[in-house]
């Protein structure tokens, strides 16, 4: 500790901290523009100049480390003079356009100018004008307002992982710009709007729609991934105008992914369902709640009465709240139905009943930064968990070694120590190699089920997997680590894979040897919560996939678009089409719900209260930030009334809090979570050693801006580069091997379904794979996300045949 004095206040601060850190800690305000606690120090704006005893010149507080006995004056004549002069320089070329600037009212420059600026300007020369840049559909630029603090440049480089903006030219001609003809494509790009201390970077969708002071700011939780980011929703006249991050160091720090920031545009989409609707003789008609609920209840009751509860299938979105999940499960049970599931994008359910507890990410989000060795299995991290990827990046920048086993070679924008890019089917073999190498390094004889032993005995360890095993064991690298902190995580592609059980068992065994933390990275806002509450079949019921494979007579859908949210789009589509009755609780009208019989308008997360449980097991409740649109009602209320209409007991909840209390039985949620989170398996699980392999495999990841109904309707996100229609993406060798050329139209077949797609060169795809993205109307004819696929030339005859059959 170092003893210093700021403005006469004696302090003890940590050795190595800067003056600005020390001042911030005790609440002494030093003005700043370029300094940001999460970014490297640039010391270029010079706004934070302070006087330090024994120094002839004022020093920048952001870059000056404290020294013992230092006496600092932030408000002395010399300091204030320096600060005022910098303020004057900043303002001479800054346009006086606050009245038409979106930043007005929430602008650092404006605020600090009030405190440090003069009332008039001494500058009478011509002002500088800088041409605006088009950096994409999310961020608007007014570069004349820029004060060259370079926060945006540093953010994209240091946090985003790729320098997409830079300062070109010298002196007064210096300007921030993207690469020639390029936009800013980072999935975290919106954060530079928050960082910009002036109105140079503002939100494009929000532009000119409201003033900061007209907005009511209400806290909420982001609903699009399992991170549970804290957000602040800004509302005007009951309409969500924008979403900003709420600082939460242990979760989202002060950042937010673009998906969480811009998805609100989907809430205001014309697709919103405002009144209940019933289909009569194939045509939709608006109706009132009473009629709709009685109709729905009547249908559900009739079918379950006549054919038993098993005739009903209940599919629940993992983005729904815990309260909604609980109620729909109880409702299904009340109808004698155990076919309830939230795991819509899973194929492999062999681990059901074999887990000790609820699978989760196996550590705290913050702990990721501290890992020394990381193994990532089947995850396109930036696509699946854009903001979580940034924590991994921090770990790697801190010296962690990252190993990747995946069918996709997408750049995570961090250094990769080792990677193996193979077909999904072969990933099991690769993990087996790592396990074998690991057991040799540790000289352990493993206690494994016979099937795993058999698999391992036939495996030959190759150099790259040997290197991975050594890395995980702490060997290799510059310095051997005695006890490395290891993290092993399975991503969405592993979770959707038909061989998930094998991958999970291997990962568990590898993790067991090297003492790793980790687990799965659940895709959705409430995946872990749904599992905790058991929104899935117990013993007799059917899981999500089975409900579609053996079509039910009736379906109850919560918050999903079946063909876009289910693993097997074609199956989902067919199941809905043949059902006698489909009751959908949905916030949106959707072509995917054309086969429904009744639509009950429910409120999206902004218009209801509820609880999400994040991937790290954090139970976070939120309140509605706006009133429900039109006749929409919170889903928990709809479910309660539907249950009442059905005459079911124990549905007398008056608030979502009561439902929550019921879920946790009055216990502290954290206590329940602590008891329940467990990635271990109860028993050794037999695995399939030899699987049929038909050759080509599909990689059907869900693009990040197609992940749920709200995101799919956010116009600005749909305009980004991440939104591309499905194509048959293959690497050059694969295209050649199939005798195809890039740009050609091909017929892609899976199971009984097919899609006509264009061949696209994609060097990130493993040999033997075709990457066809899911959750898009262009690929809804296809089957499993990760499964066998065939590609053939799409000839004119095929067209004619199709025309004839049509």
């Amino acid at each position: 500790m170092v003893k210093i004095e700021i403005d006469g206040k004696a302090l003890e601060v940590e050795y190595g901290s800067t003056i600005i850190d020390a001042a911030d800690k005790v609440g002494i305000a030093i003005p700043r523009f370029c300094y940001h606690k999460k970014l490297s120090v640039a010391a270029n704006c010079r706004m934070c100049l302070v006087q330090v005893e024994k120094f002839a010149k004022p020093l920048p507080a952001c870059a000056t480390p404290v020294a013992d006995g230092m006496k600092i004056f932030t408000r002395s004549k010399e300091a204030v003079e320096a600060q005022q002069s910098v303020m004057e320089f900043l303002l001479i070329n800054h346009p006086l356009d606050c009245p038409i600037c979106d930043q007005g009212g929430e602008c650092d420059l404006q605020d600090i100018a009030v405190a440090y600026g003069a009332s008039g300007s001494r500058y009478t020369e011509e002002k500088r004008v800088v041409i605006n840049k088009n950096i994409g559909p999310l961020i608007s630029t007014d570069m004349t307002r820029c004060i060259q603090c370079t926060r945006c440049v540093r953010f994209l480089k240091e946090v985003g992982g790729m320098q997409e903006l830079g300062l070109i030219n010298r002196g007064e001609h210096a300007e921030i710009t993207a690469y020639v003809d390029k936009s800013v494509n980072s999935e975290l790009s919106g954060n530079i709007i928050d960082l910009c201390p002036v109105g140079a970077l503002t939100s494009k969708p929000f532009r000119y729609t409201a003033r900061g002071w007209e907005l009511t700011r209400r806290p909420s939780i982001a609903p699009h991934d399992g991170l549970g980011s804290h957000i602040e929703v800004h509302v005007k006249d009951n309409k969500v105008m924008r979403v900003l991050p709420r600082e939460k160091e242990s979760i989202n720090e002060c950042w937010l992914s673009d998906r969480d920031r811009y998805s609100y545009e989907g809430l205001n989409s014309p697709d919103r369902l405002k009144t209940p609707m019933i289909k009569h003789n194939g045509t939709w008609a608006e109706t009132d709640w009473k009629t709709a609920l009685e109709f729905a209840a009547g249908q559900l009751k009739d079918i379950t009465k006549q054919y038993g509860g098993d005739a009903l299938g209940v599919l629940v979105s993992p983005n729904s709240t815990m309260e909604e999940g609980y109620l729909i499960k109880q409702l299904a049970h009340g109808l004698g139905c155990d076919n309830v599931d939230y795991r819509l994008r899973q194929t492999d359910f062999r681990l059901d009943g074999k887990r000790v507890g609820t699978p989760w990410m196996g550590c705290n989000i913050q702990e990721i930064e501290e890992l020394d060795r990381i193994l990532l299995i089947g995850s396109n991290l930036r696509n699946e968990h854009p903001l979580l990827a940034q924590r991994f990046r921090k770990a790697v920048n801190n010296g962690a070694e990252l190993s990747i086993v995946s069918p996709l070679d997408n750049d995570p924008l961090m250094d990769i120590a080792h990677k193996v890019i193979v077909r999904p089917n072969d990933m099991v073999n690769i993990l087996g190699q790592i396990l074998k190498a690991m057991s040799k390094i540790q000289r352990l004889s493993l206690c494994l089920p016979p099937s795993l032993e058999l698999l391992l005995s036939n495996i030959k360890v190759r150099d790259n997997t040997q290197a991975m095993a050594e890395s995980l064991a702490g060997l290799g690298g510059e310095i051997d680590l005695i006890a490395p902190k290891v993290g092993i995580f399975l991503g969405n592609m592993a979770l959707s894979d038909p061989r998930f059980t094998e991958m999970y068992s291997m990962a568990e065994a590898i993790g067991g040897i090297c003492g790793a933390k980790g687990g799965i990275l659940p895709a959705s806002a409430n995946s872990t919560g749904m599992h905790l509450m058991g929104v899935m079949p117990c013993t007799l019921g059917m899981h999500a996939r089975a409900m579609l494979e053996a079509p039910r007579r009736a379906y109850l859908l919560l918050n999903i678009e079946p063909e876009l949210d289910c693993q097997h789009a074609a199956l989902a589509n067919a199941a809905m089409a043949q059902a006698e009755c489909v009751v959908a609780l949905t916030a949106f009208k959707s072509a995917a719900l054309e086969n429904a019989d009744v639509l009950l308008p429910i409120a999206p997360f902004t218009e209801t209260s509820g609880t999400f449980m994040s991937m790290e097991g954090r139970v976070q409740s939120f309140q509605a930030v706006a009133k429900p649109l039109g006749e929409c009602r919170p889903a928990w209320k709809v479910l309660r009334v539907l249950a009442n209409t059905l005459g079911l007991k124990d549905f007398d909840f008056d608030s979502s809090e009561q439902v929550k209390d019921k879920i946790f039985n009055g216990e502290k949620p954290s206590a329940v979570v602590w008891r329940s989170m467990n990635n271990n398996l109860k028993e050794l699980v037999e695995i399939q050693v030899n699987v049929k392999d038909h050759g080509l495999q599909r990689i059907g990841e869900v693009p990040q801006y197609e992940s749920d109904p709200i995101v799919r309707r956010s116009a600005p996100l749909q305009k980004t580069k991440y939104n591309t229609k499905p194509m048959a993406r293959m690497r050059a060798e694969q295209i050649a091997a199939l005798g195809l050329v890039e740009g050609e139209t091909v017929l892609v077949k899976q199971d009984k379904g097919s899609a006509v797609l264009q061949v696209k060169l994609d060097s990130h795809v493993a040999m033997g794979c075709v990457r066809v993205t899911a959750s898009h109307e262009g690929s809804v004819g296809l089957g499993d996300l990760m499964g066998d696929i065939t590609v053939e030339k799409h000839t004119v005859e095929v067209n004619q045949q199709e025309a004839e059959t049509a």
Partner: protein
Amino acid sequence: MATKEMKARVTKTKAPVMSALKGQTLLCLRTLTEKNPASLATYEQLGGYTQLKRLVTEKVKAVDIITQVKVSGLRGRGGAGFPTGLKWSFMPRYFDGTKYLVCNSDEGEPGTFKDRDILRYNPHQLIEGMAIAAYTLGARVGYNYIHGEIWQDYEIFEAALQEARAAGYIGENLFGTNFSVDLYAVHGYGAYICGEETALIESIEGKKGQPRFKPPFPASYGVFGKPTNVNNTESFASIPWILQHGGQAFAELGVPNSGGTKLFSVSGHVEKPGNFEVKMGTTFKELLDMADGVWKGRKLKAVIPGGPSTPVMTADMIMNATMDYDGLSKAGSSLGAGSMIVMDETTCMVKTLKRLSYFFFEESCGQCTPCREGTGWVYRIINRITEGNGKMEDLDLLTDVSSNISGRTICALGDAAATPVLSFIKHFRLEFEYYIQHGKSMVDGK
């Protein structure tokens, strides 16, 4: 790469006329009197590389070498005048990794052209100096960063490096010992800011030349984040002589606190502009005489003694001054890099300042607010004055704006930009006032 053409150019580099060297003490340019001054043979013939060989083969201790450099009183010739020996002692002795050496040949200030003559006429002495420094400081790799606008000299130096490499003066296991050093030439693209040592380091790393905040200083965080010693070309070129003749002898060449010789680039209104290597403490009058005096027999008006970043001096101020650190400091300016710009009575100081402030306006890197915004403001005011639209309060505004730039930026460019404005207005205020009142120059009436 040294092409045949380059080699031809090296051998063709002609020696200047002998009579021009009267009164000079050739030390950094000691090959200047020879036929092929830049060639290895010439340098070897004059005893070149003997010091490097002696130090390396006799395994002379680094501390002894640094002591000699300290005794010599050699101060940084790039303009700051920081004692070289002291700087060398800042380099960490033990470091697990590569240490670097950088020679700053990026002289880009108007009127500065001394280092190019070392590169052109005596590159081997520089190479030997760098190699000795590398040996002393334990640097494995060295770069000579050469200004982008002196391409020929870059080629000459590159050719000299090849000669030295071929002759075994740089490279692996020199003279059969385990000492190895690699030296490379790097050329910039003409940005003045890259002469600032940390901007230069950024440029070597392939980045945009922008100064870093100090501390950390290059000695702990330099090229590629490794300990790095940066010295000026002339400083390095002085090293072999110091070690050959001893630090004391070097110190005795000059005056107390300013050891050795110094290259002065004399330009402007003199009969014979050029570089002059003279002993420290030589009087201004002597130096002016070497340049054959003010041209056309005109009267001396003002002198910028060390480059535009040093305060301008009136004729009265400089006439009796001696050309060394303390001498010029006492007379009210500083030695800088020894770039003496001489101005006769026909010079309009307002227009001169306009040109100088335009230079700093164009060369500011744009990183720090005061310099980025202030240099443009200053230039625009002076420009407005020269267009006849000046106001009396502009002079106070100029002084104020310049003072606000000075001392409030990461590097010294801000101070450099402020110095001429402050000193010109201080010493020639009347001329500025006349220009504002009459809308034309007091000197040339235009």
